[in-house]
């Protein structure tokens, strides 16, 4: 549900024990430069803390980053929990090290876009603008 003319609010979050946050920080900065308001939670968040932050900050987008192989667990769990809070309109996207074989099933589970290493920020920004 786009708020016309107002900045898009994005939450960039890293669930689980993965501490590799360079990609998440790059995306935070890149989406900032695309005119979005970006909240970054920092590393080692739980699904609960990410969802609670998304609720309080009333974000349009939740971007999840995982490089530790836990994406099949965390990404769908967070997408489900957001729906459980009634936040059906929030766009959930993911990035990090996601094997190509996992992408289809993640998309089925509500992770609308998956962006791996090397994706231009513009591509992510465009995807967000077209899908919120």
């Amino acid at each position, binding site marked *: 549900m786009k*708020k016309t003319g*107002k*900045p898009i609010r994005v939450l960039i979050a890293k669930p689980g024990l993965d501490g590799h946050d360079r990609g998440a920080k790059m995306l*935070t*900065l890149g*989406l*900032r*430069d*695309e*005119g*979005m*308001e*970006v*909240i*970054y*939670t*920092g590393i080692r*968040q*739980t699904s*609960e*803390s990410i969802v*609670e*932050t998304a*609720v*309080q*900050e*009333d974000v349009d987008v939740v971007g999840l980053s995982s490089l530790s192989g836990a994406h099949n667990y965390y990404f769908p769990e967070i997408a489900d929990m957001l729906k459980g*809070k*009634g*936040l059906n309109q929030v766009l959930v996207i993911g990035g990090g090290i996601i094997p190509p074989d996992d992408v289809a099933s993640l998309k089925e589970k509500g992770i609308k876009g998956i962006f791996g290493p090397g994706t231009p920020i513009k591509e992510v920004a465009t995807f967000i603008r077209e899908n919120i």
Partner: protein
Amino acid sequence: MEANTEELVKGMLGGSVVCLAKLITQVENDGADVPEIMKMIAPHLGRAYYVGITGAPGVGKSTLTDALVAIARGKGLSVGIVAADPSSPLHGGAVLGDRIRMEQHFLDKEVFIRSMATRGNYGGLPRSTGNVVKLLDAFGKDMVIVETVGVGQTELGITEVADAIVLVLSPESGDSIQFMKAGIMEVADVLVVNKADHGNPEGIVFELKTMLRMSADSSREETAILMTQALNRIGIEELYQALEKCRQGKKCGQLLGQLANKEQPAHKE
């Protein structure tokens, strides 16, 4: 007014965090229903103590807020936080990075944190801050903490929304001449020298005391000056007590009153 807005207000007054968050968005976006929202919540205001935390970038405002919230929670108070960061003048984007210092409170149901970008407003806070704190008040928060962007000397928007203002300094914040300058030094109710495990905080405290003693307004001498180490949770109970004293005493909001008499701030209701 959209039917949805009325439902949101009812939901918020009934304790729904989702409704509160969505109302803040409406207020932040200067939506058409804002006057109606403010009218509907007006009977529910007056409970919260509005505390402003301001100071230069990197002095520890967010970490101090985090530590202060822990103390307030220990005393059974519910807390709302509005944490501001700057919007880019180039493209309007923002990184809202205050919340990251407050991680210990993420799952506490009695703590609500909202990050806001200034969206072109000067003065250290978004234009909508005054209405957002009212929403948190109406929601039932006992204490609402407003953290400004990292400010310079003349960003005084906080005087329009806070009952008490904490100015956070660091041991490298300057000398007596800096503290004599007009602006932010004049509006603080509590002066905090954070990062007191670095440099020479006692020197700063001495200079601040001297400055206050020289003031023509003798009540300025009563301004609390504290040394804290927010990261190590040192001096925070003292800060809470200073704010408590401020709330009960005559000192608090006095300067605010003087300011208000001179000029009615544009976005204060």
